[in-house]
Protein backbone atom coordinates (compact mmCIF):
# COMPACT_ATOMS: atom_id res chain seq x y z
CA UNK A 1 0.00 0.00 0.00
CA UNK A 2 2.82 2.37 1.01
CA UNK A 3 4.72 1.51 -2.16
CA UNK A 4 1.66 2.23 -4.29
CA UNK A 5 1.15 5.60 -2.57
CA UNK A 6 4.81 6.59 -3.07
CA UNK A 7 4.67 5.58 -6.76
CA UNK A 8 1.48 7.61 -7.26
CA UNK A 9 2.98 10.66 -5.57
CA UNK A 10 6.13 10.39 -7.71
CA UNK A 11 4.06 10.09 -10.90
CA UNK A 12 1.79 13.02 -10.01
CA UNK A 13 4.75 15.21 -8.96
CA UNK A 14 6.59 14.27 -12.17
CA UNK A 15 3.58 15.10 -14.27
CA UNK A 16 3.02 18.50 -12.68
CA UNK A 17 6.70 19.39 -12.68
CA UNK A 18 6.53 19.46 -16.53
CA UNK A 19 5.43 22.77 -18.13
CA UNK A 20 2.50 23.14 -20.53
CA UNK A 21 4.78 22.97 -23.62
CA UNK A 22 6.45 19.77 -22.48
CA UNK A 23 3.13 18.24 -21.48
CA UNK A 24 1.22 19.16 -24.62
CA UNK A 25 3.79 19.37 -27.42
CA UNK A 26 6.98 17.45 -26.76
CA UNK A 27 5.17 14.22 -25.93
CA UNK A 28 3.70 13.79 -29.41
CA UNK A 29 6.47 15.45 -31.45
CA UNK A 30 9.27 13.27 -30.09
CA UNK A 31 8.19 10.52 -32.48
CA UNK A 32 8.36 12.75 -35.57
CA UNK A 33 11.56 13.01 -37.69
CA UNK A 34 11.44 16.81 -37.69
CA UNK A 35 12.37 18.65 -34.51
CA UNK A 36 10.18 21.32 -32.91
CA UNK A 37 13.03 23.75 -33.56
CA UNK A 38 12.90 22.99 -37.27
CA UNK A 39 9.14 23.48 -37.26
CA UNK A 40 9.59 26.78 -35.40
CA UNK A 41 11.90 27.98 -38.17
CA UNK A 42 9.24 27.03 -40.72
CA UNK A 43 6.73 29.17 -38.81
CA UNK A 44 9.23 31.98 -38.55
CA UNK A 45 9.91 31.85 -42.28
CA UNK A 46 6.18 31.96 -42.97
CA UNK A 47 4.96 34.47 -40.35
CA UNK A 48 8.03 36.55 -39.31
CA UNK A 49 6.97 38.43 -36.12
CA UNK A 50 6.02 37.15 -32.67
CA UNK A 51 2.33 38.06 -32.85
CA UNK A 52 2.04 36.67 -36.35
CA UNK A 53 3.81 33.40 -35.53
CA UNK A 54 1.72 32.85 -32.39
CA UNK A 55 -1.54 33.64 -34.17
CA UNK A 56 -0.66 31.38 -37.14
CA UNK A 57 0.37 28.54 -34.85
CA UNK A 58 -2.72 28.85 -32.69
CA UNK A 59 -5.00 28.90 -35.72
CA UNK A 60 -3.35 25.79 -37.14
CA UNK A 61 -3.63 23.91 -33.81
CA UNK A 62 -7.31 24.78 -33.54
CA UNK A 63 -8.11 24.18 -37.22
CA UNK A 64 -5.41 21.93 -38.69
CA UNK A 65 -5.49 21.79 -42.47
CA UNK A 66 -3.16 20.74 -45.22
CA UNK A 67 -3.63 24.03 -47.00
CA UNK A 68 -2.32 26.16 -44.16
CA UNK A 69 0.39 23.87 -42.87
CA UNK A 70 3.94 25.25 -42.89
CA UNK A 71 5.38 21.79 -43.44
CA UNK A 72 6.34 20.39 -46.85
CA UNK A 73 3.93 18.31 -48.88
CA UNK A 74 6.25 15.32 -48.55
CA UNK A 75 6.10 15.57 -44.77
CA UNK A 76 2.31 15.86 -44.73
CA UNK A 77 1.88 13.01 -47.14
CA UNK A 78 4.08 10.84 -44.92
CA UNK A 79 2.81 11.83 -41.50
CA UNK A 80 -0.51 13.49 -42.20
CA UNK A 81 -1.86 16.45 -40.35
CA UNK A 82 -2.42 16.56 -36.62
CA UNK A 83 -5.72 16.23 -34.84
CA UNK A 84 -7.61 19.29 -33.77
CA UNK A 85 -6.33 20.52 -30.39
CA UNK A 86 -8.67 20.11 -27.44
CA UNK A 87 -6.54 22.16 -25.04
CA UNK A 88 -8.13 24.98 -23.12
CA UNK A 89 -7.47 28.51 -24.32
CA UNK A 90 -5.20 29.16 -21.38
CA UNK A 91 -3.25 25.93 -21.77
CA UNK A 92 -2.83 26.48 -25.51
CA UNK A 93 -1.62 30.08 -25.05
CA UNK A 94 0.81 29.02 -22.36
CA UNK A 95 2.23 26.24 -24.53
CA UNK A 96 2.65 28.57 -27.51
CA UNK A 97 4.30 31.26 -25.35
CA UNK A 98 6.80 28.78 -23.96
CA UNK A 99 7.45 27.44 -27.49
CA UNK A 100 8.17 31.00 -28.73
CA UNK A 101 10.45 31.86 -25.83
CA UNK A 102 12.37 28.63 -26.27
CA UNK A 103 13.18 28.99 -29.93
CA UNK A 104 12.96 32.71 -30.76
CA UNK A 105 15.93 34.17 -32.59
CA UNK A 106 16.13 37.40 -30.55
CA UNK A 107 19.34 37.70 -28.53
CA UNK A 108 20.71 34.50 -30.00
CA UNK A 109 22.63 35.95 -32.90
CA UNK A 110 26.06 37.39 -32.31
Amino acid sequence: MVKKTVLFVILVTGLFSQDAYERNCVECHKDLPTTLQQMFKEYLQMYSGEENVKAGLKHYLRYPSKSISVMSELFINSYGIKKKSTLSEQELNESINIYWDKFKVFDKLK
Partner: protein
Amino acid sequence: MLVSKNKATNSLLKSEKKSLLRFLTLYVAMVIFMITLLSLFYYQNQEKLMLSDQRASLAKYAYIQTKRLKVLHYFFDERTTYPRDPRFRSAIYDIELMKIFSLLGDESIRFDEEIYITNKHIHFVKTLDTYYLGTKYLIIEVEDDGVWREEIWKHILVYGFIAFLLFMLFGLFLAKLFLRPMRNSIMLLDRFIKDTTHELNTPLSAILANIEMMDTDVMVEKNKKKLNRINIAAKTVSTLYKDLTYLTLEQESENEDEEIAVKSVLENRVEYFDILAKSKNITFVLSLQHATIFMDKRKFIRVIDNLISNAIKYNKRGGVIEIVLNESSLTVSDTGIGIAEDKIPFIFDRYMRFNQSEGGFGVGLSIVKKIVDEYNIQIEVESKEGKGTKMVLIW
Protein backbone atom coordinates in the same frame (compact mmCIF):
# COMPACT_ATOMS: atom_id res chain seq x y z
CA MET B 1 5.30 111.81 -74.88
CA LEU B 2 8.96 112.69 -74.94
CA VAL B 3 9.85 115.38 -72.47
CA SER B 4 13.20 117.10 -72.20
CA LYS B 5 15.05 116.35 -69.02
CA ASN B 6 15.40 119.12 -66.51
CA LYS B 7 18.29 119.03 -64.07
CA ALA B 8 15.91 119.59 -61.19
CA THR B 9 13.95 116.46 -61.94
CA ASN B 10 16.92 114.15 -61.88
CA SER B 11 16.89 113.55 -58.15
CA LEU B 12 14.24 111.25 -56.77
CA LEU B 13 11.37 112.66 -54.75
CA LYS B 14 10.74 111.21 -51.30
CA SER B 15 7.45 109.67 -52.40
CA GLU B 16 9.20 108.21 -55.43
CA LYS B 17 11.92 106.85 -53.20
CA LYS B 18 9.34 105.29 -50.92
CA SER B 19 7.53 103.64 -53.85
CA LEU B 20 10.83 102.47 -55.27
CA LEU B 21 11.94 101.11 -51.90
CA ARG B 22 8.65 99.26 -51.42
CA PHE B 23 8.85 97.81 -54.90
CA LEU B 24 12.48 96.79 -54.46
CA THR B 25 11.84 95.22 -51.03
CA LEU B 26 8.97 93.20 -52.44
CA TYR B 27 10.99 92.29 -55.49
CA VAL B 28 14.08 91.26 -53.50
CA ALA B 29 11.92 89.16 -51.14
CA MET B 30 10.28 87.51 -54.13
CA VAL B 31 13.62 86.85 -55.82
CA ILE B 32 15.13 85.38 -52.65
CA PHE B 33 12.05 83.21 -52.19
CA MET B 34 12.22 82.04 -55.79
CA ILE B 35 15.96 81.30 -55.66
CA THR B 36 15.50 79.43 -52.36
CA LEU B 37 12.69 77.39 -53.86
CA LEU B 38 14.72 76.60 -56.99
CA SER B 39 17.73 75.70 -54.82
CA LEU B 40 15.54 73.37 -52.79
CA PHE B 41 14.27 71.63 -55.93
CA TYR B 42 17.81 71.41 -57.27
CA TYR B 43 19.09 69.98 -53.97
CA GLN B 44 16.32 67.38 -53.83
CA ASN B 45 16.90 66.44 -57.44
CA GLN B 46 20.63 66.01 -56.96
CA GLU B 47 20.04 64.01 -53.81
CA LYS B 48 17.68 61.70 -55.71
CA LEU B 49 20.26 61.37 -58.48
CA MET B 50 22.96 60.43 -55.99
CA LEU B 51 20.65 57.93 -54.28
CA SER B 52 19.70 56.32 -57.57
CA ASP B 53 23.43 55.90 -58.27
CA GLN B 54 23.83 54.24 -54.89
CA ARG B 55 20.70 52.11 -55.24
CA ALA B 56 22.27 49.60 -57.68
CA SER B 57 25.25 48.76 -55.46
CA LEU B 58 23.13 48.69 -52.28
CA ALA B 59 20.59 46.36 -53.95
CA LYS B 60 23.50 44.06 -54.85
CA TYR B 61 24.67 44.08 -51.20
CA ALA B 62 21.12 43.32 -50.07
CA TYR B 63 20.94 40.37 -52.46
CA ILE B 64 24.21 38.97 -51.11
CA GLN B 65 23.11 39.44 -47.52
CA THR B 66 19.76 37.72 -48.22
CA LYS B 67 21.58 34.66 -49.52
CA ARG B 68 23.70 34.61 -46.39
CA LEU B 69 20.60 34.94 -44.20
CA LYS B 70 19.08 32.00 -46.04
CA VAL B 71 22.09 29.85 -45.19
CA LEU B 72 22.06 31.05 -41.59
CA HIS B 73 18.34 30.28 -41.38
CA TYR B 74 18.87 26.64 -42.32
CA PHE B 75 21.84 26.15 -40.01
CA PHE B 76 20.36 28.06 -37.06
CA ASP B 77 20.95 27.40 -34.15
CA GLU B 78 24.14 25.41 -34.71
CA ARG B 79 25.47 28.60 -36.33
CA THR B 80 24.58 31.84 -34.60
CA THR B 81 27.12 34.26 -36.08
CA TYR B 82 25.43 36.99 -38.06
CA PRO B 83 27.06 37.42 -41.52
CA ARG B 84 29.29 40.50 -41.78
CA ASP B 85 30.75 42.30 -44.77
CA PRO B 86 33.47 45.00 -44.80
CA ARG B 87 31.67 46.91 -47.57
CA PHE B 88 28.50 47.56 -45.61
CA ARG B 89 26.67 47.15 -42.32
CA SER B 90 23.25 45.57 -42.01
CA ALA B 91 20.32 44.91 -39.73
CA ILE B 92 17.30 42.64 -39.77
CA TYR B 93 13.81 43.49 -38.49
CA ASP B 94 10.69 41.34 -38.33
CA ILE B 95 7.24 42.11 -39.70
CA GLU B 96 6.31 43.84 -36.43
CA LEU B 97 9.37 46.11 -36.81
CA MET B 98 11.13 44.40 -33.92
CA LYS B 99 14.89 44.34 -34.20
CA ILE B 100 16.24 40.80 -34.64
CA PHE B 101 19.86 41.84 -35.02
CA SER B 102 21.68 45.00 -36.03
CA LEU B 103 25.18 46.20 -36.85
CA LEU B 104 24.02 49.65 -37.96
CA GLY B 105 25.82 52.84 -37.00
CA ASP B 106 22.55 54.78 -37.14
CA GLU B 107 19.43 53.05 -35.86
CA SER B 108 16.92 55.63 -37.13
CA ILE B 109 15.23 53.56 -39.82
CA ARG B 110 12.42 54.64 -42.13
CA PHE B 111 10.68 51.42 -43.06
CA ASP B 112 8.38 53.13 -45.55
CA GLU B 113 11.24 54.38 -47.75
CA GLU B 114 13.43 52.28 -49.97
CA ILE B 115 16.54 54.46 -49.84
CA TYR B 116 17.32 57.56 -47.80
CA ILE B 117 20.06 59.55 -46.14
CA THR B 118 20.28 59.65 -42.41
CA ASN B 119 22.90 61.34 -40.29
CA LYS B 120 26.05 60.65 -42.36
CA HIS B 121 24.74 57.26 -43.54
CA ILE B 122 22.79 55.96 -46.49
CA HIS B 123 20.18 53.31 -45.74
CA PHE B 124 18.68 50.86 -48.20
CA VAL B 125 15.62 48.96 -46.97
CA LYS B 126 14.86 45.67 -48.70
CA THR B 127 11.63 43.86 -47.98
CA LEU B 128 12.07 40.08 -48.08
CA ASP B 129 9.43 37.75 -49.49
CA THR B 130 10.71 34.77 -47.53
CA TYR B 131 11.26 35.64 -43.91
CA TYR B 132 14.59 33.94 -43.13
CA LEU B 133 14.98 33.95 -39.33
CA GLY B 134 11.77 35.98 -39.32
CA THR B 135 13.36 38.81 -41.29
CA LYS B 136 10.88 40.99 -43.13
CA TYR B 137 13.14 44.05 -43.46
CA LEU B 138 16.82 43.91 -44.32
CA ILE B 139 18.59 47.25 -43.91
CA ILE B 140 21.89 47.87 -45.67
CA GLU B 141 23.94 50.81 -44.44
CA VAL B 142 26.94 52.54 -46.04
CA GLU B 143 28.79 55.71 -45.01
CA ASP B 144 27.80 58.97 -46.67
CA ASP B 145 31.04 60.87 -47.41
CA GLY B 146 29.10 64.13 -48.07
CA VAL B 147 31.19 65.07 -51.13
CA TRP B 148 28.09 65.23 -53.30
CA ARG B 149 26.49 67.63 -50.79
CA GLU B 150 29.49 69.99 -50.90
CA GLU B 151 29.28 69.98 -54.70
CA ILE B 152 25.58 70.82 -54.60
CA TRP B 153 26.14 73.67 -52.13
CA LYS B 154 28.90 75.07 -54.32
CA HIS B 155 26.57 75.01 -57.33
CA ILE B 156 23.71 76.55 -55.37
CA LEU B 157 25.88 79.39 -54.03
CA VAL B 158 27.54 80.19 -57.36
CA TYR B 159 24.50 79.88 -59.60
CA GLY B 160 22.23 81.39 -56.93
CA PHE B 161 24.46 84.46 -56.69
CA ILE B 162 24.61 84.86 -60.48
CA ALA B 163 20.82 84.46 -60.71
CA PHE B 164 20.38 87.00 -57.90
CA LEU B 165 22.55 89.55 -59.73
CA LEU B 166 20.67 89.02 -62.99
CA PHE B 167 17.33 89.35 -61.23
CA MET B 168 18.53 92.56 -59.54
CA LEU B 169 19.55 94.06 -62.87
CA PHE B 170 16.19 93.10 -64.28
CA GLY B 171 14.56 94.62 -61.17
CA LEU B 172 16.34 97.95 -61.70
CA PHE B 173 15.17 97.97 -65.29
CA LEU B 174 11.63 97.24 -64.10
CA ALA B 175 11.84 99.98 -61.46
CA LYS B 176 12.89 102.52 -64.08
CA LEU B 177 10.05 101.41 -66.29
CA PHE B 178 7.72 101.70 -63.32
CA LEU B 179 8.87 105.25 -62.45
CA ARG B 180 8.94 106.57 -66.00
CA PRO B 181 5.28 107.70 -66.25
CA MET B 182 5.56 109.52 -62.89
CA ARG B 183 8.78 111.17 -63.96
CA ASN B 184 7.40 112.15 -67.34
CA SER B 185 4.43 113.93 -65.81
CA ILE B 186 6.72 115.86 -63.43
CA MET B 187 8.96 116.88 -66.31
CA LEU B 188 5.96 117.94 -68.34
CA LEU B 189 4.80 120.15 -65.48
CA ASP B 190 8.31 121.63 -65.14
CA ARG B 191 8.36 122.43 -68.83
CA PHE B 192 4.94 124.03 -68.64
CA ILE B 193 5.95 126.21 -65.69
CA LYS B 194 9.20 127.21 -67.38
CA ASP B 195 7.33 128.33 -70.49
CA THR B 196 4.59 130.23 -68.62
CA THR B 197 6.93 132.06 -66.21
CA HIS B 198 8.57 133.79 -69.15
CA GLU B 199 5.22 135.20 -70.15
CA LEU B 200 4.46 136.44 -66.58
CA ASN B 201 7.53 138.60 -66.14
CA THR B 202 6.62 141.70 -68.15
CA PRO B 203 3.01 142.25 -66.97
CA LEU B 204 3.93 141.55 -63.35
CA SER B 205 6.83 144.01 -63.38
CA ALA B 206 4.55 146.64 -64.91
CA ILE B 207 1.87 146.17 -62.24
CA LEU B 208 4.34 146.30 -59.32
CA ALA B 209 6.22 149.31 -60.68
CA ASN B 210 3.01 151.23 -61.28
CA ILE B 211 1.65 150.48 -57.81
CA GLU B 212 4.90 151.85 -56.32
CA MET B 213 4.67 154.95 -58.46
CA MET B 214 1.07 155.80 -57.56
CA ASP B 215 0.59 158.80 -55.32
CA THR B 216 -1.75 157.54 -52.57
CA ASP B 217 -1.97 160.98 -50.89
CA VAL B 218 -4.29 162.31 -53.54
CA MET B 219 -6.46 159.20 -53.57
CA VAL B 220 -9.84 158.89 -51.93
CA GLU B 221 -10.08 156.24 -49.16
CA LYS B 222 -12.15 153.89 -51.34
CA ASN B 223 -9.52 153.82 -54.06
CA LYS B 224 -6.70 153.42 -51.52
CA LYS B 225 -8.37 150.22 -50.32
CA LYS B 226 -8.70 148.97 -53.87
CA LEU B 227 -5.05 149.75 -54.56
CA ASN B 228 -4.10 147.97 -51.39
CA ARG B 229 -5.92 144.85 -52.57
CA ILE B 230 -4.17 145.08 -55.95
CA ASN B 231 -0.86 145.41 -54.11
CA ILE B 232 -1.54 142.28 -52.03
CA ALA B 233 -2.57 140.27 -55.09
CA ALA B 234 0.44 141.47 -57.07
CA LYS B 235 2.84 140.60 -54.22
CA THR B 236 1.35 137.12 -53.91
CA VAL B 237 1.77 136.57 -57.63
CA SER B 238 5.26 138.07 -57.43
CA THR B 239 6.34 135.61 -54.71
CA LEU B 240 5.01 132.74 -56.75
CA TYR B 241 6.70 134.10 -59.84
CA LYS B 242 10.04 134.39 -58.04
CA ASP B 243 9.74 130.79 -56.82
CA LEU B 244 8.98 129.52 -60.28
CA THR B 245 11.74 131.59 -61.85
CA TYR B 246 14.14 130.31 -59.25
CA LEU B 247 13.06 126.76 -59.85
CA THR B 248 13.39 126.92 -63.61
CA LEU B 249 16.20 129.36 -64.19
CA GLU B 250 18.08 130.78 -61.24
CA GLN B 251 19.01 127.60 -59.44
CA GLU B 252 21.30 126.70 -62.29
CA SER B 253 23.14 130.05 -62.17
CA GLU B 254 26.35 130.62 -60.22
CA ASN B 255 26.11 131.43 -56.50
CA GLU B 256 27.15 134.88 -55.34
CA ASP B 257 27.82 134.11 -51.68
CA GLU B 258 28.26 137.01 -49.26
CA GLU B 259 27.99 137.77 -45.56
CA ILE B 260 24.31 138.55 -44.94
CA ALA B 261 22.99 140.45 -41.95
CA VAL B 262 20.03 138.21 -41.28
CA LYS B 263 18.21 140.64 -38.97
CA SER B 264 17.89 143.41 -41.56
CA VAL B 265 16.85 140.99 -44.30
CA LEU B 266 14.18 139.61 -41.97
CA GLU B 267 12.89 143.07 -41.08
CA ASN B 268 12.77 143.94 -44.75
CA ARG B 269 10.85 140.78 -45.71
CA VAL B 270 8.44 141.16 -42.78
CA GLU B 271 7.71 144.67 -43.97
CA TYR B 272 7.19 143.37 -47.50
CA PHE B 273 4.71 140.71 -46.31
CA ASP B 274 3.09 142.99 -43.74
CA ILE B 275 0.38 144.06 -46.14
CA LEU B 276 -0.46 140.40 -46.84
CA ALA B 277 -0.49 139.56 -43.13
CA LYS B 278 -2.72 142.49 -42.34
CA SER B 279 -5.26 141.31 -44.91
CA LYS B 280 -5.78 138.25 -42.62
CA ASN B 281 -5.34 140.23 -39.39
CA ILE B 282 -2.16 138.34 -38.66
CA THR B 283 0.32 139.87 -36.26
CA PHE B 284 4.09 139.45 -36.43
CA VAL B 285 5.92 138.93 -33.14
CA LEU B 286 9.63 139.46 -33.68
CA SER B 287 12.51 138.63 -31.41
CA LEU B 288 15.60 139.28 -33.49
CA GLN B 289 19.19 139.21 -32.37
CA HIS B 290 22.14 140.05 -34.53
CA ALA B 291 23.17 137.14 -36.76
CA THR B 292 25.02 136.63 -40.02
CA ILE B 293 25.10 133.89 -42.61
CA PHE B 294 27.39 133.38 -45.56
CA MET B 295 25.33 132.55 -48.64
CA ASP B 296 23.73 133.81 -51.86
CA LYS B 297 21.33 136.60 -50.87
CA ARG B 298 18.72 135.73 -53.52
CA LYS B 299 18.60 132.18 -52.24
CA PHE B 300 18.39 133.28 -48.62
CA ILE B 301 15.51 135.60 -49.51
CA ARG B 302 13.73 132.72 -51.27
CA VAL B 303 13.99 130.67 -48.07
CA ILE B 304 12.73 133.50 -45.84
CA ASP B 305 9.96 134.48 -48.28
CA ASN B 306 8.69 130.93 -48.50
CA LEU B 307 8.71 130.39 -44.75
CA ILE B 308 6.89 133.68 -44.10
CA SER B 309 4.43 133.35 -46.97
CA ASN B 310 3.55 129.81 -45.88
CA ALA B 311 3.08 131.03 -42.31
CA ILE B 312 0.66 133.65 -43.62
CA LYS B 313 -1.05 131.40 -46.14
CA TYR B 314 -1.79 128.58 -43.71
CA ASN B 315 -2.44 130.76 -40.66
CA LYS B 316 -5.85 131.38 -39.14
CA ARG B 317 -7.47 134.76 -39.49
CA GLY B 318 -6.27 136.87 -36.56
CA GLY B 319 -3.36 134.50 -35.92
CA VAL B 320 0.22 135.21 -34.89
CA ILE B 321 3.55 134.60 -36.63
CA GLU B 322 6.49 134.47 -34.29
CA ILE B 323 9.97 134.94 -35.71
CA VAL B 324 12.89 134.30 -33.40
CA LEU B 325 16.43 134.89 -34.60
CA ASN B 326 19.41 133.76 -32.58
CA GLU B 327 23.07 133.72 -33.45
CA SER B 328 22.83 130.58 -35.57
CA SER B 329 19.18 129.68 -35.71
CA LEU B 330 15.95 131.07 -37.06
CA THR B 331 12.48 129.97 -35.98
CA VAL B 332 9.30 130.83 -37.85
CA SER B 333 6.18 129.59 -36.09
CA ASP B 334 2.55 130.15 -36.90
CA THR B 335 -0.80 129.45 -35.29
CA GLY B 336 -2.26 127.88 -38.40
CA ILE B 337 -3.83 124.63 -39.53
CA GLY B 338 -0.69 122.51 -38.97
CA ILE B 339 0.34 119.35 -40.80
CA ALA B 340 -0.61 115.77 -39.99
CA GLU B 341 2.33 113.86 -38.47
CA ASP B 342 2.38 111.20 -41.19
CA LYS B 343 2.61 113.85 -43.91
CA ILE B 344 5.57 115.77 -42.43
CA PRO B 345 8.22 113.63 -44.22
CA PHE B 346 6.68 114.58 -47.59
CA ILE B 347 6.28 118.35 -47.18
CA PHE B 348 9.53 119.04 -49.04
CA ASP B 349 8.45 117.07 -52.12
CA ARG B 350 7.79 119.16 -55.17
CA TYR B 351 4.13 119.67 -56.15
CA MET B 352 3.11 118.33 -52.75
CA ARG B 353 0.17 120.29 -51.34
CA PHE B 354 -1.80 119.10 -48.37
CA ASN B 355 -4.34 121.88 -48.41
CA GLN B 356 -6.16 122.29 -51.69
CA SER B 357 -8.07 125.38 -50.49
CA GLU B 358 -4.93 127.53 -50.73
CA GLY B 359 -3.40 128.49 -54.04
CA GLY B 360 0.10 127.66 -55.23
CA PHE B 361 1.98 124.95 -57.02
CA GLY B 362 3.49 123.24 -54.00
CA VAL B 363 7.02 124.22 -55.00
CA GLY B 364 7.90 126.60 -52.10
CA LEU B 365 9.17 124.13 -49.53
CA SER B 366 10.93 122.04 -52.15
CA ILE B 367 12.93 125.18 -53.02
CA VAL B 368 13.65 125.81 -49.32
CA LYS B 369 14.89 122.24 -48.91
CA LYS B 370 17.11 122.45 -52.00
CA ILE B 371 18.72 125.68 -50.79
CA VAL B 372 19.24 124.63 -47.16
CA ASP B 373 20.71 121.32 -48.32
CA GLU B 374 23.07 123.19 -50.62
CA TYR B 375 24.34 125.30 -47.73
CA ASN B 376 24.26 122.49 -45.14
CA ILE B 377 21.65 124.30 -43.12
CA GLN B 378 19.62 122.02 -40.89
CA ILE B 379 15.85 122.38 -41.11
CA GLU B 380 13.48 121.02 -38.47
CA VAL B 381 9.71 120.88 -38.68
CA GLU B 382 7.40 120.61 -35.69
CA SER B 383 3.71 120.64 -36.36
CA LYS B 384 0.44 119.80 -34.70
CA GLU B 385 -2.76 119.64 -36.65
CA GLY B 386 -5.01 122.54 -35.69
CA LYS B 387 -2.31 124.14 -33.52
CA GLY B 388 0.34 125.39 -35.92
CA THR B 389 3.70 124.74 -37.47
CA LYS B 390 7.20 125.64 -36.38
CA MET B 391 10.08 125.69 -38.87
CA VAL B 392 13.60 125.96 -37.47
CA LEU B 393 16.72 126.70 -39.49
CA ILE B 394 20.04 125.97 -37.81
CA TRP B 395 23.35 126.88 -39.42
